[in-house]
């Protein structure tokens, strides 16, 4: 059996492969370095930061900066740390994600399975919504919130995020529902099910992949939002991103880089957790078809 084909690996191949890995590791290091610096800095005390280099390890694990960032640091005139704003953010994000996802699912369901005269135009108009820059809607939205009497409230901010997010969520759900055979809905209609029954009993149960995608997308978008937060939130409804900005810009005496870094990590933590826990479902959901057979 001397004619069994062997994979030919020349020295050149090996060298190229090693070079590739070195490149990849290098890139990974470049992207991870800022986070590493943040983490290291947050664990040092101010003295150590001044004397050491960016990448030097802390001499001892010191969580003082973290507890200060969480509950003691000053954000403007108040000194309650990030904690209240962290919960503010959740109060904005959870309803905004839930409502925009649900509306997106309903819109997608209608556009792909209950076509009406002009539904294609409706969808095209929604798509335009994906490309409208944040800045453009700031002033009109401020007026609208004023009229509705929900300026500077959490409700108002939730509404802004829902309105802005629905274009994206609809797009996600429409593309997914497009792959659900129309016969499925026809069969259910003949069986006597109505619009909402079909949605609830037939469509939603197969939508898990796209719900995961949409929730992750909306969660990170809304959590990371700064502009809407700064523009439309009230004094005590500010989201965590705005609080972080205030915290970093408020200084009595020396700059506490360790507290700044800890606060920044706290602000980023929920999105990090979401990505680590559900990131693989994100990719899977984006590429999933709805129904086989």
């Amino acid at each position, binding site marked *: 059996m001397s004619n069994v084909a062997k994979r030919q690996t020349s020295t050149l191949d090996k060298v190229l492969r090693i070079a590739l890995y070195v490149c990849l590791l290098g890139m990974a290091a470049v992207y991870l370095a800022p986070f590493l610096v943040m983490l290291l800095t947050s664990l040092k005390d101010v003295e150590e930061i001044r004397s050491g280099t960016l990448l030097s390890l802390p001499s001892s694990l010191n969580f003082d900066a973290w507890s200060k960032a969480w509950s003691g640091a000053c954000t403007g005139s108040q000194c309650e740390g990030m904690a209240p704003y962290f919960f503010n953010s959740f109060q904005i994000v959870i309803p905004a994600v839930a409502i925009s996802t649900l509306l997106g699912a309903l819109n997608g369901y209608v556009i792909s399975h209950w076509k009406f005269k002009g539904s294609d135009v409706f969808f095209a108009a929604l798509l335009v919504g994906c490309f409208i820059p944040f800045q453009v809607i700031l002033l009109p939205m401020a007026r609208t919130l004023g009229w509705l009497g929900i300026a500077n409230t959490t409700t108002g901010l939730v509404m802004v995020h829902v309105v802005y997010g629905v274009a994206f969520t609809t797009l996600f759900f429409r593309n997914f529902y497009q792959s659900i055979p129309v016969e499925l809905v026809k069969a259910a*209609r003949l069986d006597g099910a109505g619009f909402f029954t079909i949605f609830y009993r037939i469509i939603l*149960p197969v939508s898990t992949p796209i719900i995961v995608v949409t929730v992750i997308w909306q969660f990170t978008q809304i959590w990371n939002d700064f502009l809407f937060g700064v523009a439309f939130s009230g004094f005590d409804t500010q989201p965590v991103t705005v609080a972080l900005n205030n915290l970093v810009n408020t200084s009595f005496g020396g700059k506490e880089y360790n507290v700044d870094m800890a606060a920044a990590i706290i602000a980023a933590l929920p999105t990090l957790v979401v990505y680590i826990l559900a990131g693989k479902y994100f990719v899977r959901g984006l590429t999933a078809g709805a129904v086989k057979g």
Partner: protein
Amino acid sequence: MASLTIDNVKKRYGQTEILKGINISIEAGEFLILVGPSGCGKSTLMNSIAGLEDVSEGRILIGDNDVTYASPKDRDIAMVFQSYALYPNMTVAENISFGLEMRKVPKEEREAEVERVAEMLQIGHLLKRKPAQLSGGQRQRVAMGRALARRPKMYLFDEPLSNLDAKLRVEMRTEIKKLHQKLGTTIVYVTHDQIEAMTLADRIAVMKDGEVQQLGTPQEIYDNPTNLFVAGFMGSPAMNFIPAKVVEQNGSYALELQAATPTIVPFPKPDSLKAHVGKEILLGLRPEMITEPQPHKEGKEFVVTADIDVEVTEPMGADTMVLTRIQSAEVNCRCNPAYPARAGEAIAMMFDTSKAVAFDKDNGQRIDN
């Protein structure tokens, strides 16, 4: 059980007319088959009957009720789709009972009904599975079960067997036939399969370009097609269309074919040929009417034996198809496999024109009706 009347139904998508005035009427309990080339509007018509598409004009009656504007759920129709369209998130049992649940049938009755249907279709052992865990044939059964459970007035089947392999298709065909005999419910059934159409139907509607070309019993369609399209569509291999010249002979009319040598054959309705004397028409003759010489038919009224030039032979087991060419038309003859026809040689064939039909060469319409 209910009769179905489709009265001048038209369907337009924008400017294009997909159904151009369909008229079909069948009795309660009849099995109607729709056949026709792809894109001729069969599914559109089925969807219109079911109420899944609005018609642009015309009326649809189920029994004596005008249901033209009724919603699908009020028409009491069940449909089986080509893709089966089973609800992927539900078990087989849930799939079957969903329609009953929607109609507020109590739970015990639903369970009894699922059991009855499962037994009828022999899918009792599958009830707890999801559709993704079933084979094609099993899915097909479940789809039928879902339709059966509600005991509707009418069933619509849109190519229900076309995704199955040949053997399973034959089995299911027989089962559907048995089922229809047992239930006696009105069925409308779309198929591309000739044999399915012939074996299942009480009536066949042959469609083309959104129009019904002919509506009749399978035998009528087979023996008495109204035009070239219907004649060519039903039957496999298709009816032969042999160019023939109308000649006058002893005060009557007959047809002259260019077999190996010019041959005169008689025609059952000679007088209908009168207007075409001297002109060429198309003689429609099924392959089984051109055979090897059979002694018991010798000398009968419409039987003529003539030599043909064999082009190709195609053994099919029970018969051998012998291909020849008469003028430019390919002609199939159905022979006994033992008959020694060989490509490139001439051999005698017996033409039986007792069931022959004649078509106008230009417009394809029957001329002997």
